[in-house]
């Protein structure tokens, strides 16, 4: 084992810490206006945080998966809405880098690295973790390329994406396409009003007669489901990290309150449980990240990290919200954390889906 403790001098960490601190100041405004300004993402991009483990020759920062996880925690501790956009964009960049046509990949990845946003369009009204019900279709065109038609649901920053990764049914099964966010035929049906992550627009998208060239197909036709699952394995490391960041933000307020008010032994014990779970979650995240970095299967570990981290952080936020009283200067932050953390147990596979995946993997190795 090596390097359990962070090296504080790494440039990405210094940058992420500074962005996190700035975002903590800005987060209430982001939430109230339901918007994170594009400048924020350009600034994150300028420091290499939007395409962290995309290879340098494609415009990415070429960093390690564990570095990405740590940076995500620092950003999410400042503003969870910004963090989810960072998470999805990094995930999309990775899919593009791995599967897209080289020219498209270079073009899109450099856009993302500069702070353009990547959208992940898999879910539909009747297809979430089980994509069998997917209705969106891609029809081959006579002169080459495809026409995509359908509706997509829960698309984070779908209104502002520079590029969308879109899954659709073809003759051979589910396939995956890279589509410019402003392609004619894509429209925002509505932005969801939701419990948390209010500064991250969650969009229902309609795709009508969206024409893409042949090279927009990523991987083989009919093999798109595998691409989605690979992306989500990595994505889950990102969401686990986001959850930990939110949990750390709430924990800091709880810790400050307990130090000031010394409410009693039960509060101390809750603080101890919160600290222990957050630390365990971080270790699980790094375990999954290290396996991913080494190129070995990490499905089980990523699901464990997401399940544990999101549930641990929910607990931390709930305990903090129950403890920190009205009138305390950290109260609003804790309330926002509690709203923001809830979705981490839902998106990129609910806790139930994570348990399903873990059980399946455990059975496999038994």
């Amino acid at each position, binding site marked *: *084992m*090596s*390097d*359990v*403790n*962070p090296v504080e001098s790494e440039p990405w960490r210094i940058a992420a810490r500074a962005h996190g601190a700035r975002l903590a100041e800005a987060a209430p405004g982001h939430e109230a206006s339901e918007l994170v300004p594009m400048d924020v993402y350009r600034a994150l991009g300028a420091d290499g945080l939007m395409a962290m483990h995309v290879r340098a020759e494609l415009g990415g920062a070429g960093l390690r998966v*564990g570095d990405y996880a740590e940076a995500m925690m620092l950003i999410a501790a400042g503003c969870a809405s910004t963090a989810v956009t960072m998470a999805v964009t990094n995930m999309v960049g990775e899919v593009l880098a791995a599967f897209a046509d080289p020219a498209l990949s270079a073009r899109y990845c450099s856009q993302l690295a500069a702070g353009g946003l990547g959208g992940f369009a898999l879910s539909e009204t009747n297809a979430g973790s089980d994509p069998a019900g997917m209705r969106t279709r891609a029809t081959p065109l006579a002169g080459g390329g495809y026409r995509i038609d359908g509706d997509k649901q829960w698309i984070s920053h779908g209104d502002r994406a520079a590029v969308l990764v879109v899954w659709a049914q073809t003759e051979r099964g589910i396939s995956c396409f890279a589509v410019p966010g402003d392609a004619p035929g894509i429209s925002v049906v509505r932005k969801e009003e939701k419990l948390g992550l209010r500064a991250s627009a969650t969009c229902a998208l309609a795709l009508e007669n969206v024409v893409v060239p042949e090279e927009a197909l990523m991987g083989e036709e009919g093999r798109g489901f595998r691409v989605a699952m690979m992306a989500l394995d990595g994505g889950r490391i990102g969401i686990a990290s986001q959850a930990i960041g939110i949990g750390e933000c709430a924990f800091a307020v709880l*810790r400050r309150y*307990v*130090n000031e008010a010394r409410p009693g*032994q039960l509060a*101390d*014990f809750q*603080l*101890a*449980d919160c*600290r*222990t*779970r957050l*630390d*365990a*979650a*971080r*270790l*699980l995240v*790094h*375990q999954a990240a*290290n396996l991913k970095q*080494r190129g070995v299967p990490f499905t*089980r*570990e990523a699901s*464990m990290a997401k*399940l*544990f981290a999101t549930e641990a952080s929910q607990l931390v936020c709930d305990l903090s919200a129950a403890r920190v009283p009205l009138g305390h200067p950290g109260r609003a932050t804790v309330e926002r954390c509690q709203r923001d953390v809830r979705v981490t147990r839902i998106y990129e596979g609910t806790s*139930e889906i*994570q*348990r*399903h995946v*873990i*059980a*399946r993997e*455990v*059975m496999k190795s*038994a």
Partner: protein
Amino acid sequence: MDLTLTESQRLVRDMAREFAEREVAPRARELDKESRWPADLLAQMAELGLMGVAIPESEGGAGMDHVSYALAIEEISAACASCGVILSVNNSLVCDPLHKFGNADQKRDVLTPLASGRALGCFGLTEPSSGSDASEMQTVAVRDGDHWVIDGSKNWITNGPHADTMLVFANTNREAGVRGVTAFIVAAGTPGFNPQPADHKLGIRAAHSCTMFFEGCRVPESAMLGNEGDGFKIAMSTLDGGRIGIAAQAVGIARAAFEKAVAYSHERHAFGEPIAKKQAIQFKLADMATQLEAARLLTLRAAWLKDRARTEKLRHTMESAQAKLFASEAATRITHQALQVYGGYGYSEEYDMERHYRDARITEIYEGTSEIMRLVIAAKALEG
């Protein structure tokens, strides 16, 4: 942060696993049922270097690191939790403080036999009315010329009935509170050092413990470990290491129960299919697997920090407490749920499950209860 094991750490783990599966596991149920001390297994484990895993070879140990030690304790405990704690006490609670605080003579005469397994050690801190609160310690040591005379009693002394050496803590200055506590090395057979009959307990029945009476027990000045008044510091630093051993023991117990539950879920059919196909069972197993993994990682992190503490100035008090708290509570939950998967068979003494369930319970109590762990963690979290 990279928790990947090194080649030599993997080798230690595999060696311990192979030995545990071949020699220890087949005997564990019988040892438990008869509360029989595993003397022959201990002799074999001594040959494998498991009595002083992280003690330098020059002091009789195997010269490995604490990560290897934690892995070895997990493996042995997965087969037999009693064997696990016997090792943990000798390694963490006796050899480790002798290595850290002992002088050259003590290392040669006391540590070397203990670390090589030619002798066995035990640790005497707890008393009938003082456990985690060492400031209430009643055992006293009074100077008499160039000797000290110890009077008092210590209880729940794991390995006590069989130990050759005891590291005992006594008050040498009542006014000084915990700063009046001093550590002494007492050899079995010293007049006035009287082990009492072995305790009867819920679990880890093959690991004998007992109360020790000290009645005018005279030890020479050279029996003092560290300086007068250093005892509390030595005890606390020792427990920071001991808790890693107990965390690893808990991980081992939990793993054994979990793996058996997974296997059984494939064998047992209900309503026309293996219960492994039932979501209620799958979700239990998923939660068990996740908690087990988190517990192991916390344990390895603490062990890793203890290794680093050899060359760097750092403490791992909080991390050790976190590992023990989480791993012991996970072991309680996991063995509880694994027994549930087994149903009635889990309750029967014909299977291992009820033993794992009983063995897990103590890990939340000894070397500091879960409540003490939370106190320690909260204190560190509030200061840090």
